[in-house]
């Protein structure tokens, strides 16, 4: 079954969507969208590094993403605003990564494959890495769920209940780095943030508890992955971007639905 490249691609897409959904919810709730972006951009530097050192891409990306994420969280509140810092670091690391890659003239690499992903080229090893990372992230987030939620709501409430917001932030940071590292093959550096944020944002209007939002975001992400894969096969379009287009479409419909619904509710005096 795994010998069929379409099956492998579908499984890769599902793996990433499942891990990205609950994490994406936290990124939306904590207004960390830029943070996800910055970590993903830094991944290009990780790619360059692993090519130079001849280590697996996954390892290089993981290390650089982790470094980036910890650096950003520890620098926050020391003189510069978070978004300024992220802007500086995300784009510098992307630029440094791109320059570094250009020095590797004995290796011809397809940069596009890292920027936009190459889900159709996912091999069995890639699949194992993706699902391994995905299961790890899901278990981590599920295990710390209550603490993460409380720390997201209010750091002081968390402290008062004996939950350390710093530790929860660290857990999210690690989970984010793992997701970026496993998703690079599927949607690429530039579109990872989309797979994190858009399914969560799409799910929001239909949910009354955080748990339903995470589950619905996962379903939306999975549906978009499969639909995008199918559409790109039929229309002969790049797969990663097609998946993101699908989820963006879903977001559009969800917001329209919510607008209409909200509007009619306010009119009926609710």
């Amino acid at each position, binding site marked *: 079954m795994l010998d069929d490249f379409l099956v492998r691609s579908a499984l890769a897409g599902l793996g990433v969507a499942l891990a990205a959904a609950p994490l994406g919810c936290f990124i*939306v*709730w*904590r*207004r960390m969208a830029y943070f996800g972006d910055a970590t993903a951009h830094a991944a290009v530097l990780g790619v360059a590094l692993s090519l130079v050192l001849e280590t697996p891409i996954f390892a290089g990306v993981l290390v650089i993403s982790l470094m980036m994420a910890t650096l950003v969280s520890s620098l926050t509140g020391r003189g510069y605003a978070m978004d300024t810092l992220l802007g500086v670091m995300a784009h510098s690391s992307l630029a440094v990564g791109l320059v570094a890659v250009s020095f590797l003239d004995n290796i011809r690499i397809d940069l596009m494959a890292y920027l936009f992903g190459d889900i159709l080229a996912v091999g069995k090893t890639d699949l194992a890495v993706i699902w391994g990372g995905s299961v790890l992230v899901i278990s981590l987030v599920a295990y710390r769920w*209550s*603490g993460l*939620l*409380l720390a*997201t*709501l*209010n*750091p*002081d*409430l*968390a*402290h*008062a*209940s004996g*939950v350390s917001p710093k530790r929860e932030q660290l857990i999210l940071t690690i989970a984010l780095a793992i997701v970026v590292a496993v998703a690079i093959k599927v949607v690429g550096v530039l579109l990872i943030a989309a797979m994190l944020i858009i399914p969560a*944002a799409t799910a*929001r209007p239909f*949910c*009354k*508890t*955080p748990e*339903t*939002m995470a589950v619905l975001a996962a379903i939306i992400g999975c549906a978009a992955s499969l639909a995008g894969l199918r559409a790109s096969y039929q229309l002969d379009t790049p797969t990663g971007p097609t998946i993101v287009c699908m989820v963006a479409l879903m977001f559009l419909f969800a917001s329209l639905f919510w607008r209409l619904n909200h509007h009619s509710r306010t009119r009926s005096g609710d």
Partner: protein
Amino acid sequence: MLIETRDLFIHLGQRLVLEDINMGVEKGEIVTIIGPNGSGKSTLLRALIGAVKPTSGQVLRSPGVAIGYVPQRLHIDETLPMSVRRFMSLPHRPAQEELNAAMSAAGVSGLGQQQVMSLSGGQFQRVLLARALLEKPDLLLLDEATQGLDHRGSAGFYQQIESVRQELGCAVIMVSHELHVVMRRSDRVICLNGHVCCQGLPEVVSVSPEYQSLFALDQDEETVYMHRDHHAYSHK
């Protein structure tokens, strides 16, 4: 003492916010911390719950003391769907009866299914109070819990605190700038402005020169309220 601080110094960034704080609360006591904006009231409370690390000095809790914390007006992001019931079961899911008991003690029975975002300011503060009560606190910490409520709302909220305290017998530390309310209800007042300016019985603090100079701007309002308070005390 349920909780006390010893020679507590706290810096936030480069700024010295709290200087040489020695204070404590006995069982069942109501202590109010007053002080102008930026005097370190909230920081002191946050130090008591362990959210701020002291630069030097100590925060000592008697072993096993349960603390309920009601923060200053809490902003919950609209992107986070959260029912009142779910909010109250963070981080530990309480038994159904406990949940109902806490909600009725705080005067918010029947709001369980509502979204937290849809609550009014007063309702939300009571939900926060209910959540704090779930811990079966020996000590209740309230950080400007009535900020943003109108006069009636805040009077009602303090009434609720009073009845909760009578029921649970817990000690209360309140941070407030509503001097008139505070003076009437506390056993002890701590007047804070980076350091402890003065502390003691409300009647004593209110006539102390430190207090007078700190709240000079509020003088007019104060005279009226204090007048009424003295009246109330003389009838006891």
